[in-house]
């Protein structure tokens, strides 16, 4: 396994009085695709939110490239290269697609590579290229998801986290998007994926964490996890 780029150490976090994460720990190796799977409410999204600082961990640490970044504000983490494509796309609906991409490249580091990244996004998502001048809110769900991932790419991420990418997409589109993620991984991007479509996620990922009740229940190479009957039962109820 290659060098760890992001480390989550015994993080506890939650919303108000409701604690969701009870000492979650995981490691994201550079250049690989890692996935977190688990039931609704297991704390997958909260894990990503804790990493990005939207939710402030009450204890534990987030280590990124060897530095403790736990207390940094969200935007500063994005500047460092910790970029999240949030659940539900969260595009700037009243702004054009191009402006959305531009906002992805807000940070100085990302701006420096603006042209290159824009080209990259257009290359991976030709559909996005056609829609550059359209208001993001008027796109279809799949196109919005492409813009959301594209916007994340514009931020020149060192770790790109994607939350529930296939949510509400047709199987075909989901498949296409996963294909793209695979290409990105192959191009050397580090990815951390939270996904409800376990089959796809596990098929694609190099390494997987199974979350339950705010703790890592199980971890291992994705192949192993996907063939674990216990997991299938616990998660799919089959």
């Amino acid at each position, binding site marked *: 396994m290659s060098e760890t780029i992001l480390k989550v150490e015994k993080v506890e976090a939650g919303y108000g009085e409701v604690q969701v994460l009870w000492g979650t720990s995981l490691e994201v190796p550079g250049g690989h695709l890692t996935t977190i799977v688990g039931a*609704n409410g297991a704390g997958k999204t909260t894990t990503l939110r804790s990493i990005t600082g939207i939710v402030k961990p009450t204890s534990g640490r987030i280590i990124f490239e060897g530095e403790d970044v736990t207390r940094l504000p969200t935007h500063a983490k994005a500047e460092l290269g910790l970029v999240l494509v949030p659940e539900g796309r969260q595009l700037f609906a009243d702004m054009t697609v191009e402006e959305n991409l531009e906002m992805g490249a807000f940070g100085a580091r990302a701006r420096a590579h603006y042209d290159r990244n824009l080209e990259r996004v257009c290359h991976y998502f030709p559909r996005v290229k056609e829609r550059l001048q359209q208001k993001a809110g008027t796109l279809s769900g799949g196109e919005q998801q492409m813009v959301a991932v594209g916007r994340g790419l514009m931020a020149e991420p060192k770790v790109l986290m994607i939350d529930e990418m296939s949510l509400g997409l047709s*199987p075909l589109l989901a498949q296409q998007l996963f294909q793209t993620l695979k290409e990105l991984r192959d191009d050397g991007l580090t990815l951390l994926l939270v996904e409800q479509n376990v089959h*796809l996620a596990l098929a*694609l990922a190099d390494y997987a964490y199974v979350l339950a009740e705010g703790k890592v229940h199980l971890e291992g190479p994705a192949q192993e996890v996907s063939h674990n009957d216990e997991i299938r039962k616990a998660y799919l109820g089959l």
Partner: protein
Amino acid sequence: MTHLINVEGVSKRFSGVQAVNGVSFYMDEGEILGLIGPNGAGKTTLFNLVSGVIPPDEGRVTMLGEDITGMAPYNVVNRGLARTHQIVKPLNDMTVLENVTVGACFGREKLQLGKAREHALKVLHTVGLADRKDVLAVHLTIAGKKRLEVARALAGNPRLLLLDEVLAGLNPTEVAGMIEVIRTVRKETGIGILMIEHLMQAVMSLSDRVMVLNFGELLATGTPEEVANHPHVVEAYLGDPNMAEKLMARQ
């Protein structure tokens, strides 16, 4: 025959997205109907259409023969249809008992305050929240809030109960507890229950019938067994086990 509820061809569009498309189904008293489907399939929208939170573009909803299409939610409640919310909506700054009393006061039976409080206490016992009755709703755990949702809906003595993912996010013990609650409710009151649920085990074991929604359309209806083996359902919702291999193969 007059069904407890009869939904005929309801549709709803949101700014270009067809959220629910011509869905029809019926339910009878004492029946538990499971509603499953991928996220974004339109399950909650269907709930909203039935419970009057949003009016449908097309179609008709009748309850015991009475047309309740597009009726304001409080009027729908008065006729005996109660629901819970997927994203819980506790009345935060009120106690658990007060929350449930609201349901009892303004539900189908419109109880007076004193009676409503008594009834609410009973319901709290049923769902297992009695010991937390004086706690502010905001301070409940997520599982507690889910129970509260159920309790509030039940307190109005509905004929039909719509449960929107009341098991999601609960740990196995809590899930077991909630399933027990649902069973008890059905046994004691004999009302109809329509439940959206992702947790297949629960859906399969609780439901008399299951219907599957995908992209706003009804994909299949049948007994749990029939549905679980329906190939389209497996592909759309349970996930195509072979898709991963297909994906790998393409490169």
